[in-house]
């Protein structure tokens, strides 16, 4: 894949090995992936295919054993923990399967969290968080705590949290995995909406129906990536 635009994500021949019970597991084997700005990539694969590992590597939660990973013009595969935290904070908006909201905090406070760690002033933080909640259609629910919200609403709070810091990439890990089919549709519509507004989205799922809503589908099998059609990328 060659274009004139610099890719946001450029993963080249990344491998990740774990030692589990004395055996070496090749969770990722020479995986390569380019994601351009404005792209919407779905990575699909069955459980055990290495997609969680890939998601951890893309999300800078884990570092690869070998290979290089350029994220928004920066080589991140060799960075130390603190730098990675900053990268996660500024470059990536996480959307998790089980929402991962903090139960003790209100919707607004949850959305504020990444901005707190970025050192944004209280006033600006509240504005940005409110803006993000408005964007996902929860502008009137800011003081509700996660338990007072439905699953779909919770996931929208989580999406607002991912949006609040305006990161270049939204990384969604099975965003509809814990939702019923009706709310799944709503959340996927929201994600497509965001892509239409210019957000770059990487979506990881095992569900073909979900994956097909992306612009591009990449399959992962035994730690190797294949473009739709079966060609290894």
């Amino acid at each position: 894949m060659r274009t004139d635009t610099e890719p946001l994500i450029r993963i080249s021949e990344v491998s990740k090995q774990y030692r589990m019970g004395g055996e070496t597991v090749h969770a990722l084997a020479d995986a390569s992936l380019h994601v351009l700005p404005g792209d919407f990539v779905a990575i699909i694969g069955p459980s055990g295919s290495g997609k969680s590992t890939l998601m951890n590597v893309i999300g800078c939660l884990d570092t690869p054993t070998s290979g290089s990973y350029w994220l928004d013009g920066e080589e991140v595969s060799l960075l130390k923990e603190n730098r990675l935290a900053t990268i996660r904070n500024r470059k990536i908006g996480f959307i998790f399967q089980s929402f991962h909201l903090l139960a003790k905090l209100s919707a607004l406070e949850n959305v504020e969290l990444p901005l707190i760690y970025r050192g944004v002033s209280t006033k600006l933080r509240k504005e940005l968080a409110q803006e993000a909640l408005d964007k996902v259609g929860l502008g009137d629910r800011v003081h509700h705590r996660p338990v007072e919200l439905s699953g779909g609403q919770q996931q929208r709070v989580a999406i607002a949290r991912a949006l609040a810091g305006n990161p270049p990439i939204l990384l969604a890990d099975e965003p509809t995995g814990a939702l019923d089919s009706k709310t799944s549709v709503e959340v996927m519509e929201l994600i497509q909406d965001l892509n239409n507004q210019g957000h770059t989205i990487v979506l990881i799922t095992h569900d073909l129906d979900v994956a097909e809503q992306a612009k591009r589908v990449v399959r992962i099998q035994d730690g190797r990536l294949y473009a739709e059609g079966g060609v290894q990328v």
Partner: protein
Amino acid sequence: MNVWQGMKMAISSILANKLRTLLTMLGIIIGVTAVIALVSIGQGTTKAVTDQVQELGTDMLTVNIFGRGSDTSLSYEDAMKLAQTDGVASVAPASTQNSTVKHASTDEQVSIVGTNAAYADIRDYELLQGRFLSDVDLDYRLKVAVLGSVIAEELFGEANPVGDWITINGSRFKVVGLLQEKGSSMGGSNDELVLVPLSTAERVFRSVGVSTIYVQVEESDKIEQTVSTLEAQLTKLFRGNANAFTIFNQQELLETFSSISNTMAMALGGIAGISLLVGGIGIMNIMLVSVTERTREIGIRKAIGAKKRDILYQFLIEAVVLSGMGGLLGLGIGVGISQAASALLHIDVVYSVSVMVFAFGFSVIIGIVFGLFPANKAASLKPIDALRYE
């Protein structure tokens, strides 16, 4: 993330579990309460005692004569020669006997002190009625007596004793004066005594010489010097036997007393320190539980950009807020207990700001020391492991 943000987070997380918070703080609360209450009451008592000693006068020396061989006392004349010593203002030799004093049908066992006119000044007695002993009383061995306030009341009730007669050891004495109440100091009441001229006492009790000499020094800051001059002179009088007498110095008593109270303060500090240590271990324990309970929260925070330092601060601040709140509560309860003790037991309490600041500061330091390990444990969690934790 700034400290204020951390404080808000810590307080909300502490308030989320009130009973556990209270139980965790209990060790610190008890420790600080113990320090504040014991030190306040202890210092109050110390102050009361020092005040009493100081009331006796720091410019007074008491010379006790034990004698040498059969010679167990000093003659009045020899004792009065001490008045010529450098730095000595005046001297009141005294010879004390226990005897029965009678008036009408009442009789009382009381100390009869044979002394001279200087006694009142040196011992700081004030007259309420009549006059004190005079030199003429001693010269003519007059049978006159000055009564202490307690014995006067026991013998005469509310009536004015001056001008009346009492019987001491079979001899009739005329009461010429009544002393004002002085209260008690270390060594008992100062008002249960009858003062008579020393020469009269020697004759009535068939005793010779004095066993106690009260010495007033001219300047209290030169008291050490005067003591050594007196010692030299008395040693000469007893032909080199320095064990024949002791010179008792109020200043020395004060010093002894303050060293005792310092030792006690140190012991209290040790006990309180141990209690605070135990409290600190309690905090560490509960913080470790909290880190385990909140592993997923830590994972989420790290995933969205919290640095190791942010998590460390969050848990450290929480531990410090816990111990600091415990310290403040302990301060309040300690002051409350001191107030209650002062009201119920009628004792003085002295609050020492430095001790309060120290106790509070120490509890905060305990929070830091014992919070560091759990906080570091939380900060070192890997985000992927923490997120996966159920």
